[in-house]
């Protein structure tokens, strides 16, 4: 891969080709490898590398954008020519200006040499350890182990010049028995931070508990949600409500200053937390700030990019996606403040309820009311008198996330990192909720 200086030089060389008044270039280079397994066998194992260049040019109230993936001849010149062509053919509109340097440092960044230099043999060996553990228990393992290195450079004609190189390793495992399955996952900047034996032990235990499930009647239940499940709830809130654009378009459930959730609930976006793949700037090169969106149950703040900040007369919080876009800013380092008891004690506090390991296919039903639907998956267990007693068949839920988080009875002191469906990093405790609505 290119060095940081080479990435910046590539971006600046592209920017030199711009003819418009203002220009921005985002250069990203990624190498990613993934070893995938099914039924204790590696069935798909892949590697990819690519350079992406995105140019945005602004002039005469017109914007043009071009993107290129590929190390072809004169990539910098081609992408800039395309952007200029797009700008020339566009029509005058309100244009958001490019941001200026804010003095932020290009750190902290989640980076590990261990991940950056991982080999197919290392991944195969780690997978083999998991599949061997499953086989020894008479079970079959399915999942993936990935290692990714990404380098990003952003330059613009206002003087922004940012670069960072990050890594990510992820192990996701489902273990299946004759009639039921379990799930566990682990994510870290370093491949060495993935404890394959611990993942295997957790998923095998869940799988063995989750055999021969029987049905329970749908209805409202007291629940304990694992961090894997809570992740989906928080990622959903980020999509539908934490964005300033959602507020400006009246699509957000958030009403600043209003308490909507239990006062035990605080949710922030923290791109500096070392557990959350820290990354220092957004896709406009603006330093990302720590933002508390929900403070003790009360709507406290939105995340901003440059266009939405200009519209509200505030400063961007550094949560921009590549501009221009119609989605608005996005919080992708979500943290829920922990509680004060170990997660096992949450289960002990339930007389009759359901433990949910994981949610699946979570989709909007009514975004303004944060109503979502989805299924439980790979570890839905009945809790009776404080003990996990038996597995129950997976259930469909249809539930307002805000109302669920208004019914928090307790949350655990221990937390887990999980990645959401869209890759959002979420650090969250286990939650004990008074009510969760299962509909079929």
């Amino acid at each position, binding site marked *: 891969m290119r060095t940081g200086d080479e990435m910046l030089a590539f971006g600046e060389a592209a920017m030199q080709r711009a003819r418009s008044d203002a220009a921005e270039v985002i250069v990203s280079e990624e190498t990613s490898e993934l070893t995938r*397994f099914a039924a204790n066998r590696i069935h798909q194992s892949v590697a990819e590398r690519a350079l992406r260049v995105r140019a945005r040019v602004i002039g005469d109230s017109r914007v043009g*954008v071009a993107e290129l993936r590929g190390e072809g001849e004169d990539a910098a010149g081609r992408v800039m020519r395309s952007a200029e062509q797009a700008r020339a053919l566009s*029509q005058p509109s309100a244009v958001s200006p490019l941001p200026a340097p804010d003095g932020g440092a290009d750190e902290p960044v989640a980076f590990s040499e261990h991940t950056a230099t991982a080999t197919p043999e290392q991944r195969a060996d780690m997978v083999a350890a998991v599949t061997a553990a499953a086989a020894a228990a008479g079970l079959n393992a399915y999942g993936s182990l990935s290692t990714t290195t990404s380098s990003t450079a952003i330059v613009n004609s206002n003087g922004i010049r940012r670069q960072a190189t990050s890594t990510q390793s992820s192990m996701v495992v489902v273990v299946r028995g004759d009639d039921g399955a379990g799930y566990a996952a682990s994510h870290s900047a370093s491949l060495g931070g993935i404890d394959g034996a611990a993942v295997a032990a957790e998923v095998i235990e869940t799988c063995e508990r989750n055999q021969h499930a029987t049905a329970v009647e749908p209805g409202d239940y007291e629940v304990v949600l694992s961090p894997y499940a809570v992740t989906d709830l928080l990622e959903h809130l980020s999509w539908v409500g934490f964005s300033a654009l959602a507020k400006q378009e009246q699509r957000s459930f958030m009403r600043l200053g209003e308490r909507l959730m239990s006062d035990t609930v605080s949710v922030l976006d923290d791109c500096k937390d070392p557990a959350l793949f820290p990354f220092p700037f957004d896709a406009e090169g603006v330093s990302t700030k720590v933002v508390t969106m929900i403070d003790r149950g009360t709507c406290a703040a939105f995340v901003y990019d440059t266009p939405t900040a200009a519209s509200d007369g505030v400063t961007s919080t550094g949560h921009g996606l590549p501009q221009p876009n119609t989605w608005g800013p996005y919080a992708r380092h979500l943290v829920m403040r922990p509680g004060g008891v170990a997660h096992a004690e949450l289960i002990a506090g339930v007389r009759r309820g359901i433990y949910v390991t994981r949610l699946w296919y979570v989709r909007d039903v009514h975004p303004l009311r944060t109503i979502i639907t989805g299924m439980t*998956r790979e570890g839905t267990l009945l809790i009776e008198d404080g003990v996990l007693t038996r597995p129950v068949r997976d259930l469909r839920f249809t539930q307002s996330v805000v109302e669920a988080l208004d019914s928090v009875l307790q949350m655990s002191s221990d937390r887990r990192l999980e990645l959401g469906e869209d890759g959002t990093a979420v650090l969250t405790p286990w939650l004990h909720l008074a009510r969760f609505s299962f509909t*079929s």
Partner: protein
Amino acid sequence: MRLREKASLYSPSVRDLADRALDAAAAAGAGYADCRVVSRTVHGLTVKNGAVARVALSDDEGLGVRVLVDGSWGFASSDRLDPMSIETTARHAVRIARAAARVNADPVRLAPLAPLTGEYRTPVLRDPFEVSLDAKLQLLMQTDAAMAGVAGVRVRESSLEFVREHRFFASSEGMALDQTIIESGGGLDATATGDDELQVRSFPNSFGRHQLCAGWEAIDEMQLPQNAERVAAEAVALLTAEQCPSGRMTVILDSTQAAMQVHESCGHATELDRSLGFEAAFAGTSFLTPELLGNFRYGSELVTLTADATSPRGLGTFGWDDEGVAAQRTLLVDQGTFTGFMSSRETAAAIGRESNGTMRADGWSRLPLIRMTNVNLEPGESSLEEMIAGTERGVYLETNRSWSIDDRRLNFQFGTQNGWEIVDGKRTRLVRNALYSGITPEFWRSCDAVAGPQEWRMYGVVNCGKGQPVQLMHVGHGAAPCRFRDVHVEPAG
């Protein structure tokens, strides 16, 4: 190196790239190898609230090499197309496969395939890349202006997208296939908001746009400006519409929602890799298993479903799949009976069959997987008018808004943007926030009418996710309005 604008079987540069990769893979020990050289151009335009929100031109080119070594797969891809990088990529694929082979006991076997060469190009009446960006923006501005005339619409968005993809496939078995796929898509969304309500209406379909393997003529046919005001007015009307009724009743789906129902409950359920567990950790498995072939009642006798990569204008229409298997039509469900899976050379061999050509990759950088081609609900003999007239109590539901199904493709819940209450054979009032739910085979067994060819339409889904790393595939669904009895319906919220 930059690929020629029009890759061709007779283009030595692309053939040379592929041959170099195959030679390097063989030299490194691959027993089988294939190579795809892909160049994709996408033009995307969006107008939002009267302003040009996006004019984006993108190019993407690279090469992927897939190998079998000691019975295990390896795949590597790169955007570096110089000879040394191509050889490095091929050797890396072999190294990956060899590492996997250390873990694997049973070797992969491939269903046989005769070598062939050929060319395919999407038939278009007017190449969308020859229509000026200015004309495209004018169309979107007209569409936006028509929506802007409707009071109460908070967000207006309309978009166009055009894709041109050159694919060259070669294999160590002697295949050399050259394809050019062209797609044209467009659509509009109108969002209306009230104090505690948000309603969206989309046209011609939800998820931003409707897309086909076709030229500019597909955009002309949509008549976006002509439909914009009506659709925007529907969004506003939904704000004050009554909530959808609740209970068990008859449900009639419009053709767009029928397409979504087919996608989730039939398309994914009949992917053989899911059934064999390949996707168990991510996309899930399927309630349909090989033992059920030919003896499972999936739906009523009116239900016939096909995977047809030859359907005109479908997003899953091509000459050959990404293993070199020719496009074909497969009966998945024949008059209600489950009869077929979508398969690959590996999975077909596992159940003693031949591949029916559904391996597709999201560009050069990703491994081909079993993906839907055009999974179609074949037309029946009824009509929407006749279905409504034959309904005592029910709802007619239009345009998907929410979709969720379990990891075995059984328990589903869908929501739609529009609903119309039906009473005594007549469409009466508009209702909002409609949800319906069910269990896949019970639902399809309750189908008692499918509209005929005159109401059958081809739709495209451009966001079908599967695989790790995740791949987004463009797939097609032909469908017509259809009716289901005794379905659970309720309002959201």
